[in-house]
C-alpha cells in the first residue's frame, strides 16, 4: 500500500515542491551561498529517489505539470519584457553586440578547453552549444556531429552552475548595471540564469529572457562557421 503511494504522481509532485520550499526557507534563514535552493533540492531529491528506489523516468513523468509550468513561465517572460520596455529602449545595439561577442567567446572557449583536456570531435561538438536553450542546443549539436543526450546534460550543467554562481561572479568583476547583469545571466545560462536573474529584479529577468532568444539564434548561426577553425 505504501508502495503505491510512493510511486504515485501526487507523491512526486508534493516531494518536489515540499523540498524546494524547505531549501528556500533554509537559504532565507542562513543566506549561505552553498545553500542555494536549487542545489540543495537537487542533492536532497537525488539522494531520496535513490533511497526509495525511484527511477528518474518515473520521477520525471510524475512532475510533468512542473515542466509544463516551466514552458508557461518562459512565455510569461514576454509580459515582463513588455513591462520593462522603457529600460531596454536605447540599449538595442549594445545588447546585440554583447550577445554576439558572448556567443563567439562561449563556443570557442568551451571547445579549446575541452580539446586541451583531451576531448575528441564528437565531445567538443556536444559541448559547444552549452549556453543555449535545450531544443536549439540539441539541433545544433546533432547537425555538427555531437551527441544530443550529452548536449542536454551540458546545457543543464551550464545553467545550474551559472544560475548559482552567476550573480556572485558578476559582482566580483564589478558588473553593477542591471541590464548587463540580466543579459549576462541569460546569455551564459539560458532560462536557468534568467530564473535567478528574476530573483534579483524585474529588469534583470526581462533582459535575461531576451538574452535566451538572442543567444540561441546567434549561436546556432555561428557554430557552423566557427567549426571550420576550431
Amino acid at each position, binding site marked *: 500500500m505504501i508502495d503505491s503511494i510512493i510511486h504515485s504522481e501526487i507523491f512526486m509532485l508534493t516531494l518536489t515542491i515540499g523540498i*524546494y520550499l524547505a531549501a528556500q526557507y533554509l537559504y532565507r534563514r542562513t543566506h549561505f551561498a552553498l545553500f542555494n535552493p536549487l542545489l540543495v533540492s537537487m542533492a536532497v531529491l537525488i539522494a531520496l529517489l535513490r533511497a526509495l528506489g525511484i527511477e528518474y523516468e518515473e520521477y520525471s513523468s510524475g512532475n510533468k505539470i512542473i515542466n509544463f509550468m516551466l514552458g508557461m513561465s518562459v512565455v510569461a517572460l514576454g509580459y515582463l519584457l513588455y513591462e520593462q520596455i522603457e529600460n531596454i529602449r536605447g540599449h538595442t545595439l549594445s545588447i546585440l553586440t554583447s550577445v554576439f561577442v558572448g556567443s563567439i567567446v562561449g563556443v570557442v572557449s*568551451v571547445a579549446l578547453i*575541452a580539446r586541451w*583536456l583531451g576531448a575528441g570531435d564528437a565531445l567538443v561538438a556536444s559541448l559547444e552549444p552549452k549556453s543555449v536553450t535545450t531544443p536549439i542546443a540539441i539541433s545544433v549539436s546533432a547537425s555538427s556531429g555531437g551527441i544530443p543526450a550529452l548536449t542536454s546534460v551540458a546545457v543543464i550543467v551550464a545553467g545550474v552552475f551559472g544560475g548559482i554562481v552567476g550573480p556572485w561572479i558578476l559582482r566580483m568583476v564589478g558588473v553593477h548595471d542591471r541590464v548587463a547583469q540580466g543579459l549576462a545571466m541569460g546569455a551564459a545560462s539560458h532560462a536557468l540564469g534568467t530564473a535567478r536573474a528574476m530573483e534579483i529584479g524585474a529588469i534583470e529577468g526581462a533582459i535575461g529572457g531576451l538574452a535566451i532568444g538572442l543567444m540561441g539564434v546567434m549561436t546556432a548561426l555561428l557554430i557552423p562557421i566557427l567549426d571550420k577553425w576550431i
Partner: protein
Amino acid sequence: MVGIFYLLLFYLLGNLVSVLMHGFVPGSVLGMLFLFVALLSGAVKADVLRKPSRFLLDNMMLFFVPVAVGLMAAYDLIRGHLVAIVVSLLLSTIVVLVVVGLMQQKLGNKRHD
C-alpha cells in the same frame, strides 16, 4: 483566468510555429516573442497578464528542479570524460558571464556620457 488563457494561447501558437520550424526554436521562446509583440501592438491588454505572469516568474526556479534532478541519470554518459566536460563547461560559463556582463555595462552606458 483570461491571463492564463492568453499564456496558453501564445504557448500553443509558439509550439505550432516551432513544429513548422522542425523544433529548432522552442515553442515557449517563440510564445514569449509572440506575446511581447501582441502586447506592444495593443492586441492584448497587459493588465490581465500581470497576476498569472508574476506567479509563474516568481516561482521559475522551482520549475527547474525536475530538470536538474535529471543529472542523476546522466552520470554514466559523462563518466568517461568527467574532467574535460566539467572543467570546460564551468570555465566557459564564467567566461560568457564576465564578457557579456562587462561589455554590456561598458557599451550600454556610453550614451549617458
